[in-house]
């Protein structure tokens, strides 16, 4: 057991656990942050997708000891909104297209979509269907068609 420190949704946090504990369980079981969901624990379903220093990653597959004190971990609860807005443009697009069904995968879907659009913008590219094809997040309710619409809509506002 050791104490690990990092920046979670803008706040410095500490958690005492074994270093090999995957970050997902530190977040959910020890820190009480429930936005990232368990769907497989195998880095496959992507339901737990969060951001580390602005990049998408899956905390189910990262030992807590791999997280540095200066790392900024962002869960859906801490997804930064744009100026003067309560919600991020991706969340607004999700509402506009009423994307969610059960909602279990959607925090991960939104976090992955935000990272994808940010990456494309950094490369100066417009989002295309082939980019959305690269998202591995599973939605067992099958909301894929509306996810496509919402991402394209949000990309125009990001």
């Amino acid at each position, binding site marked *: 057991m050791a104490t690990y420190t990092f920046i979670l949704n803008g706040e410095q946090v500490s958690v005492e656990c*074994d270093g090999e*504990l*995957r970050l*997902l*369980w530190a977040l*959910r*079981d020890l820190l*009480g942050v*429930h*936005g990232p*969901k*368990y*769907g*497989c*624990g*195998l*880095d*496959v*379903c992507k339901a737990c997708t969060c951001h*580390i220093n602005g*990049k*998408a*990653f899956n905390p*189910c*597959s*990262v*030992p807590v000891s*791999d997280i540095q004190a200066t790392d900024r971990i962002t869960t859906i*609860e801490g997804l930064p909104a744009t100026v003067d807005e309560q919600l991020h443009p991706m*969340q607004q697009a*999700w*509402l506009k297209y*009423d994307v*969610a*069904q*059960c*909602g*279990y*995968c*959607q*925090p991960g879907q*939104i976090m992955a979509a935000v*990272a994808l659009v940010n*990456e494309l913008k950094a490369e100066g590219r417009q989002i*295309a*269907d082939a980019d*959305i094809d690269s*998202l*591995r997040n*599973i*939605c*067992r*309710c*099958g*909301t*894929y*068609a*509306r*996810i496509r619409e919402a991402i*394209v809509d949000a990309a125009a506002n990001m």
Partner: protein
Amino acid sequence: MPEVGVGEARAATNGISRRRFIGYLIAAPTLVAAADLRSAPPADASVATVQPVDFYDLTDLLTDAANLTASLITVTINSDGTASFALPRAEVGQGITTAIAMVIADELGLPLDKVDITLSDARPELEFNQLTGGSNSIHALYDQVRVAAAIARGQLALTAARQLEAPLPKLILKDGVITAPDGSSLSYGSLTSAAAVRDTQAVLAQLKPASQQTLVGTPQPRIDALQIVTGTKQFAMDLEVPGALPTMVCRPPTINGAALAILNEAQVSAMSGVTDVAIIPHTQFVPGGVAVRATTFGQCIDAIRALQVQWAPGGAAAKSDADVLEDLIGAELPMTPALGQTLDERFTFYFRPGDPLETNCAVADVRPGSAEIWSAMKSPIYFQETVAGILGLPVSSVTAHVTQGGGSFGRHLFADAAFEAASISKAIGKPVKLMWHRTDNFRQGRVHPMCTSRVRVTYLGSNVLAFDQRHTSVATDFTHGLGEILSATLGDLPEGDYLGYSQSVFTLTANVPYNFGPVTQLLNEVYHPPGSLFNTSSVRNIYSPEVTVAKELMVDRVANAMGQDAYQFRRSFVRDPRMLAVLDAAAKAAGWGKPMAPHTAQGIGIHHEYKGYAACVVEIDCTPQTVSRVVENGYTGPRVTRVTYAVDVGLPINPLGLEAQMIGGIMDGIAQALTYSLHLEDGYFLEGSWDDAYYTREWNSPPNSPPSEGVQVIIMPANQSEPGGAGELGVAATMAAVANAYARATGTMPTAFPINHNLPLGFTPLPTVPPIPQSPTDGLQEEF
């Protein structure tokens, strides 16, 4: 919201409605109202045809059973002006909380956000009225909640008329306020105490006519959408029940195996964070194995992987796909003698997972004199009554909370996780937060039963003379009955499930929507009782996808044999004008018959169920460059590039939600036709991850941007007074259309599903011991 006068509503209702509704004002401190639908007349009989389902179907059965206790379903008006309703169904993403809130708000004259919907705990007195299944919730509840809300509205108006000293017909009810002609007004909240009654009394409900409904029929977003996108929607594993620590189960290497002994209990008990290790016996209700409780789920995974357990094998230990297929073919009922030229084919449908994205899970706190359990249960009364017996408690000492579910697709008709959590909590004497590992969900969870469906079409010239279908299936488990213990017990009798439920459900759902002369559709099942070999459930959905795919492939084939176009052939044989309308709508919007490039094709499929009609046209791309796309650790294959889906549910409550249900069903139909199955080998399923079991992923779903046209859902205008079911209505027609499109694109009619099932395995199966894989550690290398 338009203004509604109570008096006018009464006159209009009397003039239009064919049905009179009675309900109750319930004795309570505030206004509480309920419906009485026991004496409501049945819906108008359909035109006579040859099939039982035309007169009485599964939807009728479930609704008639539910209506017996409609008077116990209450709408309450609160002093803050809101209305509240404890929904006696599970919300698992299908959107019934939103649809029911719309119905109540509409009938009461309240804004949608003033209606608070919660999920009701198990209420045994509701009997058959707390089962979420058969795509029946909206059909069964529409009248129940509408009548209750109308009675509440009527009582509010009467009370306001007295207090405002104004004539009842002149009152205006709008947005939760009742206004008299002189401008004086009272809010619903201020009236609710005065409107309450001391003794329950029967009253006649004055329903708003359709013309005055302002929410029903309009697109409304989900009432929990904001919670979902901000990550605050609570599922069972998000609950903080004091002392309920993470708990998982080490499961056997064969389906329904049982733990005999733990060989290293002391070592595992001493592992970091572990508080308890205990054998949980395998029973009819509890899958079981060795339970581990720890501070975190990560420590549970470590402990399960370290456990050394002696196992007894399950009943299916020697079975593989080929063995089951042989048993199914051997049990196929004989065809009647043919009296003409025939086309005859048998189709095979392999096991499919019943996995929502949220794995099986439940929180349980079992104490010496009481028990409290939280889980996304679709049959909570059955659970409460049965688990009370298992725990040795009176039913009234067990509280069963229904949590929001992360999907179900029929899976949660069985509360396996809740039974297991209760058993573990009792065994170790502590609260538990039980979660299944994904690999366990695939390998030990409930599956759609493997089956064959043989179809023979007898024809002469351009006429079909007879249609015969012999459906043979691994037993589907219906031991949940109608959701409570009495009807469920029938399913436990020898052959009771088979005779009492399987045949009934098959007869009440299977149909041929064409004028094909004499039709026979017969079911036989193997491996009874259900659960003896395989754990099954009505997952996406009951018999319909397979029955319809086999039927629709043979419809294309007979059309081809007659030299007719698949769409025109269907047009000339469908026997219901509503079916003809959806068929024409889908074909027209899809541009049926347009030129298609080599290795691509359109396909068509239709389906009738749940009082609804559906027609689907898809375009499929089977070109070599598409089929050979490479996605790391993913399956690509043929891609459905466009879906046009026309649906008639009679009375759409929320078109936005209905469209969502169809899109979800479409994605399932694509998966079930092309990719999604389980391979059975020596008593266990090879799939253990979403990268093994190929449910539709983004790269399999239709692209959206030009030249693709993505998914289009056409909702037919309201043409009935009652809403049909939607939950599973998108699946069967899509699966059939995809199968037909594949046949046309490749020139080969597929006879085994999913179409990729018998290709070389595309993944390396995970080991069975230990039963679950360790989580990777390289997640930071994957970031983007």
